[in-house]
């Protein structure tokens, strides 16, 4: 076989006779639907101290210094987290309320369009 087009047709014919694998991997990814729970989870900041590290080759001492600084500034950082989380949570809650209102309005509009349903 020489032509790639022929090869593709042959591959399709051969694959048609085989069983699908149950490997959980789909050909096309589905659009993720972000749940309200996920939104709220992201809204409340919970930084992981393990993510404070040096990217240098011999960076272990630098990592220790960075983490010590984080601990020294904990009171201030907690305050920043609290303020940001409060804002995020308010926005997330507002978005959720708007979603509920949109759902309600769409339901009413559908009822008006099809009153017999």
């Amino acid at each position, binding site marked *: *076989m*020489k*032509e*790639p087009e022929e*090869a*593709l047709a*042959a*591959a*399709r014919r*051969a*694959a048609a006779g*085989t069983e*699908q*694998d149950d*490997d959980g*991997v789909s*050909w*096309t*990814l589905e*659009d*993720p639907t*972000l749940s309200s729970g996920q939104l709220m989870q*992201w809204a409340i900041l919970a930084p992981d101290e393990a993510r404070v590290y040096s*990217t240098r080759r011999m960076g272990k001492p630098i990592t220790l210094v960075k983490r010590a600084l984080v601990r020294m500034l904990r009171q201030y950082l907690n305050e920043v987290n609290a303020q940001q989380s409060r804002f995020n949570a308010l926005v997330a809650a507002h978005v959720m309320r708007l979603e509920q209102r949109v759902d309600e309005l769409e339901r009413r509009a559908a009822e008006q369009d099809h009153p017999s349903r």
Partner: protein
Amino acid sequence: MRVSQVLCAAGPVDAVTNQAFAWRRKFDGWGWSGADYAARLAPRFRSAELKDLGELAPAADEVVLVHYSGYAAGLDRVAASTERMLLLSHNITPSRYFWATDPVTAGVCELGREQLAQLGMRAGAAAGVSEFNARELEALSGRPAQAIPVLFEPAPIPRDAVAQDGPPAVLFVGRLAPHKRQDLVIAAFARYRRTAPGAQLTLVGSPATEEFGAWLRELADRLAPGAVRFETEISGARLASHYAWADVFLCLSEHEGFCIPLLEAFHSGVPVLARGAGAITEVVGDAGIVLGAGDDAATAAEAVRLVVEDGELRAELRARGARRLEHYDAGRAAEQLRAAITELAA
């Protein structure tokens, strides 16, 4: 002529960063001056050649070449300060691929689409590195955009990077990210491996997030234990060796704005089997086997088997790949960009 370049984000193995550096070498060769700026740097990336975007204050006769790849704070200020901005879109990955694994990147992509539209309306000239990107930019901005291909200047293949007699080797090169679908590559390879038990798959690329990299490794251990090798941040020589050892380059990305590794595969004489998504169909042309929307991992596995086992088919794909590279001749791309910049500067 003075030309400054702007990168939305820069990193050590980032294709767009490498493009900017390659263009700077060309500009130097043409006797053009200027500096390069980045809005963000990857954590481990330090480059004396890049300045912070905040330092850019374009002179009246200076051309600003923006390599656009995602939202960048500060770009709007730059766009407002010059009429000589050439916007070159390298594509923005749709945000939907990142919400589950990397919401910050998802946000950057989401905002980027909006910013790209605004910049496209303001820019003195607009272009994309592929027809796919150019059309997307036109749709966003409502203004014409031309295609100026990437500057592909492959390094000569090292003498010690020679093909080895060994088990079949499948290769994919690209950042480990959801839209590049390395999970599907692993699944297709696992199916193929049933007919070629010794086969090896090599995935070259840094993970977009540690969690996503770990998930791919777990999947590989489950579907093809011991047969998948992950390589990150390797040298050019090591990469050339992987291309030399590969029997087939398997790209199942769901979205690509260009995909330079396809050209690297053509250059190295590796037959290409790819999914026709994004700009891939355009870049591959007739030089590879292009899978469609209705195909699946089983078809990909069968196609891999055919490419590995059929010498005549492999030879034809290699020949077509070599011909396809002529379309991406670096001299032609250089002339196109040079003309666009010169026109903007006039």
